[in-house]
């Protein structure tokens, strides 16, 4: 037994397919957000979408279609916004959503009997509806993207409590989001693709969570382990600036940080954070970093205000003219644990440097030449100076070894330095206007103190070349996931180009056809064009002479009648039309053309009245 919907119109099958795509996109999004298998979300959505259209005979088919794709809209609204890859998925959903609605409306409309008595339109007519839908989806989508930042400013809360943190989350939380009293290097960092933070900021920066200033040869710790409650100020907790860290002239800027993991207990922000707007008590350390007493759970959002001190190379070189405060020197430039050969290496590398800044750059250059970056680097044996082992034995390491080496060598040279941990800016999501920070973006870098400027970050790892080992083989799925937005945009651009191509080809064919058409056909087309401008095209069963008479009545000019008669005579007469007749015909056509043009001017009631012109009888 054939399904009644399919029997009524096979195009409902297409609608069912489109609804399946729409709901499948929403299902995939939901699966990603809720941790379900992606295949389950995809297949479940597709089956639900198709079944809703074809399998609910008690509901009108279009109603069922609208209900199921409307439900997918709520699902997308609920689950959207995880990462850049999801933006691509949302685009796919949006496109499928609009195409489904338009094609369903189109097919439903075609159920009505036609006024002109024609049978049901061909299945190809759906293509036109789909084209319209794509144009609408692209136009509305672009407008939504352009307006979203403006609306978001008014809608988005600066502070969101988020979910309750869990113990599982504590065990699974990235190290850079937990409070650490010690930063050792006994294990390689975990570098997954999991999104840990989403940061809405108007510029990229290194997002810092903690700093360490005491090196013991195997790990970092703090010289001052005190922590105290930040005082409440305007717009949240005001952090007490570290002494000498913030000279005058800095600019304040805000970042809104959304936690995407189950547990986080440090405040992450661009250096130097001076205020935190959150719903829970903030504690800060003397070094200017901060955390919360009650950890953040998933979805928690807070806003930090940072002060950025502009620094140029010239300013940093000129900073040596001023002496660093003794407190800073005592705390951050104290001789570290360092092996003699590392000390010698540092002294040799910095031999020609004229300034602190040049020294930093020289050591960075030395590291870039001496070591290679590898996350697979061997862990230093227990009891061995990590920096020494890294620089002279393994010569392989990741950001921790590289930045530690630089910090230790700088301190050996009497330059105040410390290491900072946190995250690199992450991937910018152009649709969400946010930086998507993943676990693999965890990073460690060096902060060097410049008198008059404050702490300035340096990332020596950036200059270190990758080790020669083969890169991790990229999977097709991973590539697709990373480039989903680009793929969708490319597909949209391709669709737009294809559409332009089709329209261009049609225009070309039209031009060619007009070039090849006979002189009489061209004149007939002119007459019809004139008629259509007066909203009176030829009827399906109207002869040329009848049409001429009707048009003459419609526009109130009898020349239309004589033109039609002349054309009729020329077409069906015994011999070819005389040149004089054709000239007279052209003259009449030109006069009618002028008349139509003059009536198109504003204020001409006859033309502006539209169809009423044609409704008058002579």
């Amino acid at each position: 037994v054939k399904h009644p919907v399919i029997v009524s119109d096979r195009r409902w099958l297409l609608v069912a397919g489109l609804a399946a795509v729409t709901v499948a996109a929403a299902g995939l999004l939901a699966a990603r957000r809720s941790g379900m298998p992606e295949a389950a979300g995809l297949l479940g959505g597709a089956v639900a979408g198709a079944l809703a259209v074809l399998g609910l005979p008690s509901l009108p088919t279009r109603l069922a279609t609208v209900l199921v794709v409307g439900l997918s809209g709520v699902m997308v609204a609920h689950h959207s916004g995880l990462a850049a890859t999801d933006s691509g998925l949302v685009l796919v959903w949006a496109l499928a959503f609009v195409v489904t609605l338009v094609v369903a409306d189109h097919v439903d409309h075609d159920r009505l009997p036609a006024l002109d008595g024609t049978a049901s339109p061909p299945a190809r007519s759906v293509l036109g509806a789909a084209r319209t839908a794509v144009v609408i989806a692209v136009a509305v989508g672009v407008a939504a993207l352009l307006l979203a930042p403006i609306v978001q400013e008014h809608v988005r809360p600066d502070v969101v409590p988020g979910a309750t943190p869990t113990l599982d989350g504590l065990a699974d939380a990235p190290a850079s989001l937990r409070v650490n009293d010690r930063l050792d290097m006994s294990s390689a960092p975990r570098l997954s693709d999991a999104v840990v933070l989403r940061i809405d900021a108007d510029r990229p920066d290194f997002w810092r969570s903690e700093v360490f200033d005491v090196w013991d040869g195997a790990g970092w710790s703090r010289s001052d382990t005190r922590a105290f409650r930040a005082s409440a100020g305007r717009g949240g907790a005001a952090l007490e600036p570290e002494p000498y860290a913030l000279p005058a002239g800095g600019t304040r800027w805000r970042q809104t940080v959304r936690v995407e993991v189950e547990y986080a207990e440090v405040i992450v922000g661009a250096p130097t954070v001076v205020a935190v707007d959150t719903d829970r008590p903030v504690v800060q350390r003397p070094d200017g970093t901060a955390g919360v007493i009650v950890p953040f759970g998933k979805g928690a959002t807070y806003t930090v205000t940072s002060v950025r001190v502009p620094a140029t190379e010239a300013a940093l070189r000129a900073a040596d003219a001023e002496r660093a405060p003794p407190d800073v020197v005592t705390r951050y430039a104290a001789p570290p644990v360092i092996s003699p050969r590392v000390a010698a290496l540092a002294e040799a590398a910095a031999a020609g440097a004229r300034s602190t800044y040049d020294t930093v750059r020289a050591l960075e250059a030395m590291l870039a030449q001496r070591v290679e970056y590898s996350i697979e680097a061997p862990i230093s044996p227990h009891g061995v100076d990590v920096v020494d082992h890294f620089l002279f034995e393994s010569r392989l390491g990741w950001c921790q070894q590289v930045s530690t080496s630089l910090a230790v060598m700088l301190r050996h040279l009497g330059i105040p330095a410390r290491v900072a941990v946190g995250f690199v800016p992450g991937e910018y999501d152009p649709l969400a206007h946010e930086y998507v920070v993943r676990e693999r973006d965890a990073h460690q870098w060096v902060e060097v103190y410049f008198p008059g400027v404050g702490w300035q970050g340096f990332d020596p790892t950036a200059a270190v070349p990758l080790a020669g080992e083969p890169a991790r083989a990229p999977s097709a799925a991973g590539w697709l996931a990373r480039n989903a937005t680009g793929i969708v945009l490319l597909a949209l651009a391709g669709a737009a180009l294809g559409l332009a191509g089709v329209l261009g080809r049609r225009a070309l064919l039209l031009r060619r056809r007009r070039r090849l058409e006979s002189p009489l056909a061209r004149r007939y087309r002119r007459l019809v064009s004139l008629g259509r401008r007066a909203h009176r095209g030829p009827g399906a069963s109207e002869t040329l002479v009848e049409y001429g008479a009707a048009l003459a009545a419609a526009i109130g000019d009898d020349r239309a009648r004589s033109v039609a008669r002349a054309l009729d005579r020329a077409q069906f007469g015994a011999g070819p039309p005389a040149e004089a007749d054709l000239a007279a015909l052209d003259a009449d056509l030109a006069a009618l053309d002028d008349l139509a043009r003059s009536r198109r001017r504003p204020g001409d009631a006859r033309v502006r009245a539209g169809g009423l012109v044609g409704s008058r009888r002579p």
Partner: protein
Amino acid sequence: VNDRASPGELTIVAVATLVTAGYAFARAAQTGLHAAVVVGLFAVGLFAVGLVWPVLTLRGVGAEVDAPRDAVAGDEIELRVRLTGRARRLALRTLDPPGPWYRARAPGEGRVVHRAQRRGVFRFLRVELRAAGPLGVLSRRRLLVVELPAPVLVGPRPVPARWTAVIAPADERAGGAPVPAGLPDAVRAVRPYAPGDPARLVHWPSTARTGALVVRELEPPSVVGVALLVDLRGDDRAAVEATAARAAGLGRAVLAAGGRLLLGTAERTGPVLREVDATLELSRRLARAVGGPLPAPPPGWPVEVVQAAVPGGLGAPP
């Protein structure tokens, strides 16, 4: 001509887009998710496009209708509708009473079946246009009151009636009582055949008897008929229409029996008393008839008054 557009009706698609938008903005307000804002704006954008598109579609669309001149109440008539302007994916129907919807585009034309609902003279036709596409968010409607090229005269649907022929007035009988008809072929005399006499008039018994052709001379044909006065005054619309229908049935019965029918009605211009010789003319006269003072009954004619208050009488159904 009072064309007007109704604001239209929001559809389930509007509900779906608004719910999506509302939920997305609520989610954005709760979580601050940019993507939720984008989804909300997207849904609002679709809603806005869906509102504006049908309004623009229906702007500038006009209609012309060609209708048959005559119709009978309750019958379906075929109208030729021509749409002007430029629009696609329209739906169209006639009103009074609402007919079926047709899909249409402008410019375009076609035939529409319309039921002539009631008796009367109709110079305008109400045509309703509807557009909802492409998203189906808003079902926008526009009412066009189209002036017909010629009025449509919708006569009453006749109620079958019987009529007993009565002699219509001859001058000599003016003022006399109606005389039953029934002898129009009575033989008055016989006479010898003259060239040109129809063969059917040959009187065969006399011809046989005399041996020469003899033809009959007949009485002149009897004039039979009735003056039918139709009184449509009254507040009860149904009773008035039933009266018109009875009059139509009686008139048809008179005409079918070969009788003369003098129809007296009230029209907008005043009382009209005129002989009717065809059912079409009868229908038209009754279509134009309204409640009002009737003409004076003609002298010498058998008069039959059909009125709402007196349902019985000569025109009563068998």
